[in-house]
Structures are given as structure tokens and as C-alpha cells.
């Protein structure tokens, strides 16, 4: 779950609200593998490398409309951050720098090979590459990795990062190396380091896809001696090809080559530019304008351009030729809250499913360029996903007749009144709310629109069942992206009712034992193909409950300045692969 954290950033005020970073698939399944191309044209960097190059040197200029959650590898959760962090840190595993679906495959990075599981899938062992050094020349050992993972468990200090290790490691009550009795902060029993090149993870429950965990930035080694806790983000010690030269939090930073990075130990990274500059908190529309004018190379957030630039690019063939429009593993959807009457009745929920005009939903996100209409939760780019359309309508514009029938079945033939919540700074979600208000209004379902601060949407408002119920939030607009492109990475956090907490949820509405059962089945399925099918069954089960109204599978329109070389969209992140990029001058 690259959950709401990923999507938190917002350009303030009227200025544009940025859309999101995303993971997952590139423009369907056409995968021409590594065949390079220099021919320009729309989508030239999808599924293939555009303008391939090995030319080193130059400065790669990047900008961010918002700011990092944190540059600390143990405390970051944005997709673009996980993509970018590979420039200054090496985790055990990583997504392969390759176009299309290849890019969604894991490859060893700091580890010599993929993890070796025990038979019960509860113990995973990795060997660490020899000769990898920190930027100060110190050799990286397995203890540095253990320490890094241990500290990332401390969610009081590092609240932003994912919690998979907290959930899956056999912690035995361990909380934080900062409260450790071991002076070296290595008191965690769930990770063992029999020698400097071996690290062993012990899980509390079996898990087949642990390599994905090993690919998270929290396995990027952190030297205990240099760890400054919350301040480590100001001076991260690099293991990758670049190190921080300057770092002004909230404003800008620059990366320069790390002399202690040895290409011989790293088969994955090209490390073409000599220098990388990053400007933070730049107006999103300005970023687009500068991309188009050539003053900037990359919008690091990787969610595509703003509506204004989108219209500009689409209207101009020359600009359009330099753009890519990949599909992401991200879903824009609306939760239907069964806690709020009469939505506790499935027929009333179905009425909403039928009445909603999905074309309006799509328009809210920028039309066909902004996304494809979704009929179920699991995005098509995730392997194994099936087309599920339980509430079909002509042209996806809604089926008023069926909706009215459902309303009658629900005992509300004249419709009913409820509230719809959206995130205040998200203008696209506002447009969704307005659109649903119109289309549901056709069958007499009257929506009152309510906005809540984006930052606290999950913690205090929509994600807090008590609040949602007492405030009559029948519908709650939301969005979701996969942490990694598979069924587990996408569905678990938004469909499992057992993970629902008093506040701070990511699953706002899907509470059904049948769905939970389907999840359990999928989690314990060992065969990959069967597992993919099982997750699709979870998707179907969730749709049958009608607790979620899928809206749009996100697409972003990316502008690709001429200066860039070696450009391709990786399905691992649904962004340009930042480890591969180079510049012409």
C-alpha cells in the first residue's frame, strides 16, 4: 500500500493539486523488452528505452512540487522516493532497471542473490555482496542492514515508512534500537547476522513474497555511528552511485558522484549524470512550464503534468510527441460506507454502483489521458487481474433503471440523502464529488458535499469509522496505489476488515467476512498462478459487497524533455526509471 502517505503532497491553495506517484504497469502489456528507440512519438518510452545512451556526464535537473516525506531510507513511503532513493542507497533487492513489465521484477542489489526461504517460508536468508562501501569508505556489513531495519521499526521516530517489517518480523516485543539494551542497537532477535555477509530474517508468519520486503528502502544499510535519529535525513550516508553534496531541507539538494561506489559491485545502475540537482516546493504548473521549455529535465513526483499542461501538450502534436501516457497500478475510487443508513442495505449500495456516471469520474481526472474507467478494484496492469464488471451500464454512463430497481429493493424508491467526503486540497476529488452529486441525483440520491483536510483525512475523518458514522459520511472519495505490482501489494490494505483500527485506516468501508476469507486463501496459496487468481477472487468478492465504487485506473501524462537520454517507464514504479536517466548536455 503506497497508501495515502504517497499521495499526501499537495500544492497549497488554489495552486494545483498534484496527482500522484504511482506504481505499476506501462501502457498495457506490450513488452518489447529492451529494444531501444530514438524515434520520437507519443509513448516512445513505454515498453522500450527511448534514446538509449551510455554517455556519462552532465547535470540532471529535477524538481518536486512538494517535498519528500523524508530522505531517510527508513522513513519514506512515496513511490518516487523509492525510485529515486536507489541513486544514493542500495537495498537488498531492487526493481530491475528495465522498461515495461521487466521493470516490475525484482533483482538482487546489495544481496548477491534472491532470498533463500526455509521450507515453512518463515525464515529468509540473504548473502551480502562483498566490496560495497559507504561514501566514507567503510565496508558495508550485514550488521548495518540489520541496524537499518531495526531502526525503521521505530514508528515514533520514523512515522512515514511502511510497516511490513513490524507486522511480519517475529519482533518478540522489540520496539526500537534507540531503546535497546544492546549498545550496538542490534538487540532485535528477529534478524540474525551470523557473519558480516549473511543476514537472516525470521518471520512470525509464512510469507512467500518476502523479496518484495527486502527491496524496501528500509533495508538500505545505515551505519550506527552516523545515525542521528530524526536528523539522519539531513545527512544520509550513501551506498549508491551518488552522495549528498548539499541538502537544504524543504528547499533543494544536490547529489554528486560517490567515489566509493564501485560499478563492479553493481550490475544494475548506469549512473550517467555527474550531478543531480533537486528543487523542492516548486509550483506544479511552473514545473510543467519549465519541462516544456527545457529548463528542467524531470518532475520527480512522477504523476504526470497538471491539467493546464496536459491540455497544452495534447493540443500540440510536437509536444505530444514528447509525451508518455502510461497506465499505473493506481485506482481512484469511492468508498461506500455500510455504517451509514440506508447504505447498510446492499441494494442501496448497488443503486449507487448503477447510478454513478463513470464518464464523469473519468473527466474529473482529466479524461482518457487521466485514466481508464475502472469496473473493479484490481488494476489491469497487475498480473492476474481480470475484467470484472458486476454493475455494467451502457458507455459506463450509469444505468438509471437498474439503480431505481435497486432503490426499490432497498425500500427507498424515492432515493435518500447522504454526505460525500473528499480531501479538501484535492480539486480532482472535488470534481468527483460534484460529478457523483449530479449522476446520483438522477435517481433521487441527494449528496451533500463535505471536504476534510487532506493531511488528516485518514486519521481524523474518513479513515476514522466513528467519525464517518456520526457525520453520516455515506460516500468517501479516495485513491489507492500498490506498493508493488501484485495482488497482495494492492488489495490487502484496502479490503481486509480485520486490519480496521479506531482511526488512521486505509480500508474505509470494505467489511465482509467473505472478502476476508478470500484474502486468507490468497495469502496461503503457494503456486504463483493460483495466487494471482486468488487475488482476483478477492477483487470479485469485494465488488460483490458493493462497498467500493471503482472510478478510474490512473494514467499520467509525462513530458519527456529532449535533453533526456535512456528514458523508459518502469512498471515497478510507473515512472521514468531514475537510475537509468542520462542527459545530453
Amino acid at each position, binding site marked *: 500500500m503506497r497508501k495515502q502517505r504517497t499521495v499526501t503532497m499537495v500544492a*497549497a491553495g488554489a*495552486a494545483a493539486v498534484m496527482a500522484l506517484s504511482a506504481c505499476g504497469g506501462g501502457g498495457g502489456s506490450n513488452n518489447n523488452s529492451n529494444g531501444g528507440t530514438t524515434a520520437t512519438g507519443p509513448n516512445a518510452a513505454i515498453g522500450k528505452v527511448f534514446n538509449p545512451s551510455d554517455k556519462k556526464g552532465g547535470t540532471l535537473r529535477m524538481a518536486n512540487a512538494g517535498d519528500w516525506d523524508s530522505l531517510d531510507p527508513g522513513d519514506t513511503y512515496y513511490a518516487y522516493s523509492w525510485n529515486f532513493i536507489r541513486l544514493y542507497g542500495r537495498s537488498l533487492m531492487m526493481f530491475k532497471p528495465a522498461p515495461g513489465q521487466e521493470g516490475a521484477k525484482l533483482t538482487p542489489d546489495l544481496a548477491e542473490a534472491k532470498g533463500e526461504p526455509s521450507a515453512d517460508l518463515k525464515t529468509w536468508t540473504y548473502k551480502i555482496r562483498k566490496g560495497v562501501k559507504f561514501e566514507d569508505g567503510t565496508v558495508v556489513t550485514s550488521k548495518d542492514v540489520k541496524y537499518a531495519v531495526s531502526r525503521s521499526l521505530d*514508528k515514533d521516530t520514523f512515522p512515514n515508512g511502511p510497516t511490513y517489517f513490524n507486522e511480519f518480523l517475529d519482533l518478540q516485543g522489540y520496539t526500537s534500537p534507540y531503546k535497546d539494551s544492546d549498545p550496538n542497537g542490534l538487540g532485535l532477535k528477529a534478524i540474525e547476522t551470523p557473519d558480516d555477509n549473511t543476514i537472516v530474517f525470521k518471520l512470525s508468519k509464512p510469507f512467500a513474497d518476502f523479496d518484495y520486503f527486502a527491496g524496501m528502502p528500509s533495508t538500505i544499510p545505515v551505519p550506527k555511528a552516523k545515525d542521528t535519529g530524526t536528523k539522519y535525513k539531513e545527512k544520509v550516508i550513501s551506498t549508491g552511485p551518488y552522495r549528498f553534496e548539499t541538502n537544504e531541507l*524543504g528547499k533543494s539538494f544536490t547529489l554528486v558522484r560517490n567515489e566509493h561506489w564501485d560499478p563492479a559491485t553493481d550490475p544494475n545502475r548506469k549512473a550517467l549524470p555527474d550531478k543531480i540537482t533537486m528543487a523542492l516546493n516548486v509550483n506544479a504548473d511552473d514545473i510543467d512550464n519549465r519541462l516544456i521549455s527545457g529548463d528542467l529535465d524531470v518532475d520527480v513526483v512522477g504523476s504526470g503534468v497538471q491539467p493546464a499542461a496536459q491540455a497544452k501538450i495534447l493540443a500540440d502534436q510536437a509536444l505530444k510527441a514528447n509525451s508518455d501516457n502510461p497506465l499505473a497500478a493506481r485506482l481512484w475510487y469511492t468508498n461506500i460506507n455500510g455504517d451509514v443508513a440506508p447504505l447498510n442495505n446492499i441494494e442501496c449500495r448497488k443503486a449507487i454502483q448503477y447510478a454513478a456516471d463513470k464518464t464523469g469520474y473519468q473527466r474529473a481526472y482529466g479524461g482518457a489521458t487521466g485514466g481508464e474507467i475502472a469496473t473493479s478494484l484490481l488494476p489491469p496492469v497487475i498480473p492476474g487481474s481480470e475484467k470484472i464488471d458486476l454493475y455494467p451500464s451502457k458507455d459506463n454512463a450509469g444505468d438509471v433503471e437498474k439503480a431505481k430497481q435497486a432503490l426499490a429493493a432497498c425500500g427507498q424508491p424515492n432515493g435518500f440523502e447522504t454526505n460525500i467526503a473528499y480531501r479538501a486540497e484535492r480539486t480532482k476529488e472535488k470534481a468527483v464529488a460534484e460529478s457523483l452529486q449530479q449522476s446520483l441525483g438522477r435517481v433521487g440520491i441527494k449528496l451533500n458535499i463535505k471536504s476534510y483536510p487532506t493531511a488528516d483525512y485518514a486519521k481524523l475523518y474518513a479513515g476514522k469509522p466513528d467519525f464517518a458514522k456520526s457525520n453520516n459520511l455515506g460516500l468517501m472519495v479516495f485513491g489507492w496505489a500498490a506498493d508493488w505490482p501484485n495482488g497482495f501489494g494492492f488489495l490487502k490494505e484496502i479490503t481486509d476488515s480485520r486490519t480496521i483500527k479506531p482511526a488512521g485506516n486505509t480500508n474505509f468501508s470494505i467489511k465482509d467476512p467473505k472478502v476476508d476469507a478470500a484474502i486468507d486463501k490468497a495469502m496461503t496459496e503457494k503456486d504463483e498462478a493460483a495466487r494471482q487468481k486468488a487475488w482476483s477472487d478477492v477483487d470479485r468478492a469485494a465488488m460483490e459487497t458493493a462497498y467500493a465504487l471503482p472510478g478510474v485506473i490512473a494514467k499520467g501524462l509525462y513530458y519527456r524533455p529532449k535533453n533526456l537520454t535512456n528514458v523508459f517507464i518502469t512498471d515497478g514504479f510507473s515512472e521514468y526509471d531514475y537510475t537509468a536517466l542520462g542527459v545530453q548536455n
Partner: protein
Amino acid sequence: MFAYIIRRLIGAVILLFVVSMVTFAIFFLVPRIAGATVEDMASRYVGKTADEAAIHSMAERLGFTDPLYEQYGRFVAGIFAGADYDTGAEVVHCPAPCFGYSFITRNPVWPDLVDRMGVTISLALGAAVIWLAFGVGTGVVSALRRGTFFDRASMGIALAGVSLPIFFTGLLSLTIFSYGLGWTAPGGSYTDFAEDPLQWAGALILPWITLAFLNAAGYARLTRATMLETMNEDFIRTARAKGLNERTVVVKHGLRSVLTPILTIFGLDLGILLGGAVLTESTYSLPGLGKYAVDAIVSNDLPKVLGVTLVGATFIIIANLVVDLLYAVVDPRVRYS
């Protein structure tokens, strides 16, 4: 005079205390009145794995469970002596002057404020110079040439200036001058003066002019009205009766009196602006105090909002103080003893 300064200084400090108290109360009391529990307020600051107990203990660590006056007392003490913040994992020291600590970005607020202040000061002072020169100049000429084309035209433009929201004129100017003609830097391209004065000015010229246009309008109108009134004063007639030429009458006798009301308004305006030119900074994405505050409000980062508000209030109070003291210089009738 000296005693007066001391008295005013003490008054300003007291005022600052009251303002900070009220601000503090509004940010920490109003949500409670509106129904938020201390746990709600603390839940922003805890990690994802936190359960009820963890949230409650966070609330306690943050001091939300203490009476408000104790929280306020700690806050004030922090400004003078620095404060320690227990994040749960470690105790972070926030050195004096500690204007709070953000648990969202995990850093003390004060260094941020200092950092952003430079941008805001650059913006405010630059614009102030322009609007004073143009506003007062236009106002004087308009008053002296009342009813002429110049008067009507400049007052018309001035009215247009105060009738347009700055984000409208700002975006328009960006469209025309930055993206259309390419004369000026695009929004969000701020460079420190120390780094490159030319780029600094280049990035600020458009915000300066836009902000100045808006303000100059008001100043032109105010100057004109005051000037017209002043030129009807008895002492102006006396000055003329002495045989002074019109220039001396206008500049030395007329303008001198116009200065007082201009000074009052200018002090207030500048004070407000220094606390963050919210709209201008948002429109041009300048990383100043105003933008900082807006961003902080969006992410519900209360300590930052509180910090900016207090700094803003301080600027206003200081500006008022300076204005009052300048009165004594400008107007000898204001007697201080």
C-alpha cells in the same frame, strides 16, 4: 522621550504576550471546544503502528493533557530557554528561541522561520519601495492637478488596482510576462540575494511590481485625499502668504504633513506583509513565511502555524512601535514625557 520609548517597549512586550496567549488558545482550545479529543490532536504525530494507548501516551508526552496555561507556559519558556521535545524515541532539544517543534517534519520551527523570513523581507521591502515612490508621487501630483487628465487617469488606474485580487493580477502577469514574453523569471524561481543579486531581483521583479501595484493604488488615493485636505490648511495659506514659491509650499509644508497618515498606514501594511505575504507568495510560489504558513495549514502542522502567526504578530507590533516612535520625530506635537 527616552521614558516614552521604554514605556512603549514594555507595552509592546505585554501586547505580544497577550497576542501569543490568544493565538495559543485559539489553536489549542478551539479544536477542543469544537469536539476534538486530545487523542485526536495527538494522533497526527504518532506512527502508523500506534494503538490507543500509544496515542494517549503521545498526547501526554506532547502535554496535550495538561491544562492549557501549563502548555502555554512551556511554550513561552521555550522561546527564552529552549525546550526539549520527547518524540517517544528520543528527546530532541530545540534551542532558544524555540518557537515550537514540528512533529510532522521533525524539526524546530525557528530555523525554518529565519530561513523563510529572508524571502518575505526581500519581497516586502522591494515592493514597499516601489509602491511608496509611485503611490505617494502619483497621489501628490494628482492632488495638485486635481481634475486634470492625469488625475483622472491615475486615480482610475489606482481604483482598478485596489479592485483586483492579487492572485488574479499575479497570474495574469505571469502569463503575459513570464510565459508569453519570456521577460521575467517563472514563478517559484527564488534565489537568495547573497547568492546572486541579479537573479534575486529577476525572480522578484514581477511579484514586486504586482504587489506594489496593489498597494500603490491605496497609497495614491490616500496621499491624494490627505494632500487635498492639507493644501486647504491655514498653515499652507500662511506659507503662501510668506511668498514661498509653490514648490516649497507643496513639498516642505504640504507633503510634510501628509507623511503622518502615510507613515501610519505604511507601518501597518509593512508589518502585516512581513508576517507573510500570503497571497503573493502563494501566487508566485515564493518560499516565504506566508507560503510556509499556508503549507503548514494544509498539513495541519500547528506548531508551524503558531510560529508564523507569532512572528507575524511580532512584526506588526514592532511596526506599530516604530511608527509611534517615528511620530515623535515627524510630529513635534506628539509630546512624550
